[in-house]
């Protein structure tokens, strides 16, 4: 197992190299530099700025410099916030984005999983149709529509929860629900399908024949098999949660990485955009690895090589 993990991590290196190189050259080939402003800068000032960020050197040297910096874990200075490095900005935003993402995943797994299990157990019942209609609706509502509508109802209308911002647990409720709804819906569908597949199998009948309580049959015997598709889905889901958090952080003015990313993309803050993309790629690769290991642990038939 340890060997497998090590080999996977080593396999990340060429992938990361491709990502970094691709985004680096795309950024540099773009017309217009980060310091192009409406007001033309004096020649000397401009030259000084470019020298500071090494923009006056030939492209390949900039590339080598950037690669070696990234290799050492230094993503460079931010072009827009001159007194901050990209690392500092990411370190500032990441705990917030992580909290939000984990809460959203927790909402998705608990609500979606429970709904899926119930629907799967009572197939074709009213409950089944109800949850599956909700699931289809949840898949079709974009989060940037759901967020404002929830805000309108629960924050502006009822006044139960704060409108936006970050701080207490109350600030976390609406963003997590907004971000988690889509995945809750998807997880509900996956769990239901998994449940239907498992519940008809012989070992479930055996468990029932042994006289186990229904709760034990469902939770101990059926559920581990039924959630396997959900575990596979966790990889893509985490990628999408990262993407979705960009919108949700913008809507609810949460100072996470996503919001930095959007503002830096709009401002052409190259190092920040690049750094965020690299950071998210590393995060995703790691998460996919965790999911694969988890899968092998849950399903003994899968052999990790």
């Amino acid at each position, binding site marked *: 197992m340890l060997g497998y993990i090590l080999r996977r991590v080593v396999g990340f290196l060429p*992938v990361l190299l*491709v*990502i970094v190189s691709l*985004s680096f050259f*795309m*950024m540099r*080939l*773009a017309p217009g530099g980060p310091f192009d402003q409406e007001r033309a800068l004096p020649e000397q000032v401009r030259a000084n700025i470019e020298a500071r960020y090494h923009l006056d050197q030939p492209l390949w040297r900039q590339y080598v410099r950037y690669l070696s910096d990234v290799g050492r874990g230094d993503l460079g200075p931010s072009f827009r916030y001159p007194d901050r490095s990209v690392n500092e900005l990411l370190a500032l935003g990441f705990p917030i984005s992580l909290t939000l993402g984990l809460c959203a995943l927790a909402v998705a797994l608990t609500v979606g999983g429970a709904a899926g299990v119930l629907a799967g157990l009572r197939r074709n019942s009213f409950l089944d149709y109800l949850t599956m209609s909700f699931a*289809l*609706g949840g*898949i*079709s*509502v*974009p989060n*940037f*529509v759901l*967020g*404002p*509508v929830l*805000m*309108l109802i629960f924050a*502006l209308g009822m006044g139960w929860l704060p409108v936006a911002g970050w701080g207490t647990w109350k600030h976390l409720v609406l963003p997590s629900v907004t971000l988690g709804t889509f995945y809750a819906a998807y997880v509900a569908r996956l769990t239901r*399908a998994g449940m*239907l*597949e498992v519940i008809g199998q012989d070992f479930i009948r055996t468990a029932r024949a042994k006289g186990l309580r229904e709760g034990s049959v469902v939770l101990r015997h059926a559920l581990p098999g039924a959630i396997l598709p959900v575990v596979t889905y966790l*990889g*893509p889901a985490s*990628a999408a949660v*990262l*993407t979705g958090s*960009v*919108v949700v952080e*913008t*809507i609810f003015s949460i100072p996470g990485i996503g919001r930095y*990313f*959007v503002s830096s*993309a*709009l401002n*052409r803050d190259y190092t920040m*955009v690049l750094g*965020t*993309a690299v950071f*998210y*790629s590393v995060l*995703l*690769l790691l998460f*996919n690895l965790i999911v694969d290991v988890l899968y092998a642990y849950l399903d003994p038939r899968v052999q990790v090589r």
Partner: protein
Amino acid sequence: MKQRAPSNERRVLRRPPSQGARRLLAIAYRLLPTASCLPQSRQSGASPWHDALWRLRKNRLAMLGLTALAFFVMAALLAPWIAPFPFDKTNLPYGARPPTRTHFLGTDELGRDLFTRVLYGSRISFAVGILATLVSLTIGVTYGSIAGLVGGRVDHLMMRVVDILYGLPFMFFVIILMVIFGRNILNLFIALGAVQWLTMARIVRGQVLSLKTREFVLSAQAIGASPRRLLIRHVLPNALGPIVVYATLTVPAVMLEEAFLSFLGLGVQPPMASWGSLASEGAAAMETYPWLILFPGLALTVTLLSLNFLGDGLRDALDPQITSGR
């Protein structure tokens, strides 16, 4: 007492319209060419496609989705004739007002008619959805069929690339692409299509791999058909079912992504409007003018729901083996 009378009145008034609406829907369902051009009966010995379309027709939700979509697409095509106002006509003194008889979805802060803007927004949303899907279809089918047809080491390498790309945060690359090449609509659908082809490539490759060992392909090969002819005449037509299903499911995904980018201000630029940018304007002003977010959001949600219904229905219709287990 005074308060009860109107509520009773309303309850009485509410019933006939809902019946009428149901009847209208039933009539529309029959009249619509989309529904009536599908097979009306199940013939014995019919072609697989005929059979599949018949199954689709039996699927209520899919037909509902198709009907709604037909309405939306027709409205989008006819927008210049249907729209009650020019889409960028402002009326500053009028300002933002809730729905009235002339502006039946209300107006925005510049006094522009929201119904007109949603109508024109649908043109952009549908255009991006369809064109980006075509881009992804082209790349995915080409890539997948080359990998499947050549096989061996090339196939292995090509699929490794797809595996790697799968693990990447794609929307970030689309955002980078939009930042670099400018935020115009042509770049938008190329960028979206360029990142949406992975699943299509996998599906096509799988189909080609299984089809290329079948007898009819081998016989075509034996009489000297070129690889190109083999692919276009023999393999791809037989892989059309999964391709169609997945393309249908790509359209809502792409539309959602376009709306997402426009919402962030990275997609369609004003004065043009898509559903995403309308929702974004609406979200900014929702505290005072909630209808500005509600109607574009509703339009987008209903369209996505219809596309998902249709996609699920097509999958069930074209691929009966998959669903028989569920």
